[in-house]
């Protein structure tokens, strides 16, 4: 079976300055991988390059065994994957419901699928008709991750999703992402600054430094997450 995401020898950056230097990694179907590292080491750049929002200078990106390296972003987005970027990617003038429906491929399934989301983020259920731009910062994050989950993708890329969320919601979010994996075998690549949160979910972690992978390992149990976080010093 081919990997959900396979990146090899990827070099990319902005203008003349390269941020990623020949980076390789893979995420297997049903696997949750946490990508850790300090600021500016290229975590978000990697996700943007995978999505085709940033052109790769060199190297290849494959999704489910097919190369998408040279495809424009809208064609990459047609693959069964979802991306929750770090900076606001909502349609501010559309309602919460309209934003959610845009993530769906078949409109009929909205009610059924949304029932599960409403369990995790009850606040969204009460605000379906409200304009997304009037949600608070944390609520917008909830909407972003809900939209990604609603499409039942085979691969989810999330960029710092815990930022700005209250602790109890972070806890629920970890649970729902793990459940999604158990039920649908969804693979996930999770970029996080909150190491504790990332490692409570992940099977494996990768440590990124100056655009290269400098360390990796398995996460055995949630208990070891805190120790790892301290060890990594991120």
């Amino acid at each position, binding site marked *: 079976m081919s990997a959900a995401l396979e990146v090899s020898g990827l070099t990319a950056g902005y*203008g003349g300055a390269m941020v990623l230097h020949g980076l390789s990694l893979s995420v297997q179907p049903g696997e949750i991988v946490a990508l850790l590292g300090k*600021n500016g080491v290229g975590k978000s750049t990697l996700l943007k390059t995978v999505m085709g929002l940033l052109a790769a200078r060199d190297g290849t990106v494959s999704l489910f065994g097919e190369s998408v390296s040279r495809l424009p972003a809208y064609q990459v987005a047609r693959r069964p994957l979802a991306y929750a970027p770090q900076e606001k990617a909502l349609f501010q003038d559309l309602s919460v419901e309209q934003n959610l429906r845009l993530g769906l491929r078949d409109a009929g399934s909205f009610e059924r699928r949304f029932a599960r989301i409403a369990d995790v983020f009850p606040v969204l259920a009460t605000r379906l008709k409200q304009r997304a731009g009037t949600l608070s*910062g944390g609520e917008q994050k909830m909407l972003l991750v809900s939209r990604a989950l609603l499409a039942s993708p085979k691969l989810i890329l999330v960029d710092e999703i815990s930022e700005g*969320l209250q*602790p*109890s919601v972070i*806890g629920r979010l970890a649970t729902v992402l793990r459940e999604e994996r158990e039920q649908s075998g969804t693979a996930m690549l999770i970029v996080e*600054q*909150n190491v504790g949160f990332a490692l409570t979910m992940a099977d494996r972690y990768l440590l990124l430094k100056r655009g290269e992978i400098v360390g990796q390992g398995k996460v055995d149990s949630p208990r070891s997450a805190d120790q790892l976080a301290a060890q990594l010093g991120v």
Partner: protein
Amino acid sequence: MLVAPEVLPTYLVNTLIRAFLYAAVAITVDILWGFTGILTFGQSAFFGFGAYAAALVFTHAGFGPGLALIAFGVAIVGAMLLALLVGWFAFHPGASPLYGSVITLVLPIVVSQLLYSGGSFTGSSSGLSGFESFDLSLEAWFRIAGVFLIATTAGVWLFLRSDGGRILEAIRDNEQRCEYLGIDVSRVKILLMMACGAIASCAGFLFACVQMVVAPEYAGFAFGTELLMWVALGGRGTLIGPLIGTLLLDTSTSYLSGSLPFLWKLLSGLAFVVVIVALPQGLLPALASAIRRAWRRGAPASVAPTAEVELHSADPQPLAGLASAGRLALSVKDVHKRFGSLQVLRGIGFAVRPNELLSLIGPNGAGKTTLMRCIADGAERSSGTVRLNDHDIRHSSPAACVALGAGRKFQNANVFDSLTVAQSMRVARTRLKRPSLWRRERALALPTAALEVMRATGLDRQLHVASRDLSHGMKQALELAMVLALEPSVLLLDEPTAGLTKAERTLIGRILLDLTQSHTLCVLLVEHDLDFVHEISTRIIVLHQGQIVLDGSVEEVVNSDLVREIYAGAATPGAHG
């Protein structure tokens, strides 16, 4: 320049004089549109104003040195007053950018209509001609127009590359951040409009003196749009591009429109479309980058420019500009905020002394950010009073609240994309240190706290990196440093450490704590990282559904059942981070 008028054919000299004057007007369009982001169709109106000031005085009062001086005075002062009026309409607080452009679009239409309907006084559609003017040769006019263009270009060039000129780019990038750095954006734009109006009017005045004929078309909308085209073709935001664009296009137009009257309009229109589609930056930048590429072929990639900025610490100016500091840094009384039928804040009241680090926690959507907004912008709240350092903020703009001591960091990194780190920090100091309008300084004096944040996050080693190329966390750090550079006495921080690593958080926490203890400063912090809040706060307020449900010491709040129930959930503080 000196011999050109003697050797060039008379027709070309004549054409070039006009092109020189047009180019000066095109430069003002470039300042407004290319550098400041104000799309303007109205510079032709100021050109026409200057031209008619000369023509009307010379026609109706006669010509003489004294009268010429009066006409010149009318041209400059009148244009500045007109610009003040138009600027106020276009940029008054609350006006949208589109509204501003519409006003500049209406201006030339109104001015030319007034000229059309002025009967024999303005000469209506045939304009004014046959008036007396300076008795100078064509060669002399050529030199005067040339010197005027060179002086205008040089002056504008000095200004644009000066520290003061950076503010224009900052406004183009992010007006909101400028306002919250205490820069009165409306005022800057109006002053700029007045300066640009005066230059255009001066060009118009010279034009009338040379040509001794004026017509309403010179103040019209078509000419205003043509100016935009020349600027776009030459390369907006480059200063030299619009200048060369205008000289080439206006000169070729006057030659070719005679032999190819209709075809030429079509050709120039097509050229415009082709350039906009193929070279959106304009001709000059495209040419320059092609030359640069050819030059560098085979050579290694260029290295980043070496540091030209020297950081050092500034003398503290606490509460600069405030007559007196009160006993309370901040007091909020019965503040309500409604969005339509939605009640976001209901009767919020609390007071903060200097030296307090007050954390504001609560579930997502509790109204924390809205409360911050109500403190930093007098127009935000629906009712209630907010006092900063014992001064009622009333309905003050964000810039005026900054003058009362407020400094606000936004939830999402809010920076100037095209400015470098060093330039951004200098813009942030504008309120406390007036930047030079013609010089660039090497030394950059910043308050200790801002320097410490820059050192802790490594921003001090990226002074020449454009903000847009910084990572998300570094943008957050940059914004925090910019706000600290304001030397605020009430620091409003909305998740200041989001996107930063644990180590950087700890460092910033220490800096904040130190600031509150050693300076007369209070911090109001919105944070979700309870560990972080626990470590540095002196007091915590819990907000829930727009009301304060708890206000107490750190231990009281962190251990309360209420907080566990509505906020932290099963997660204990230790599980986070």
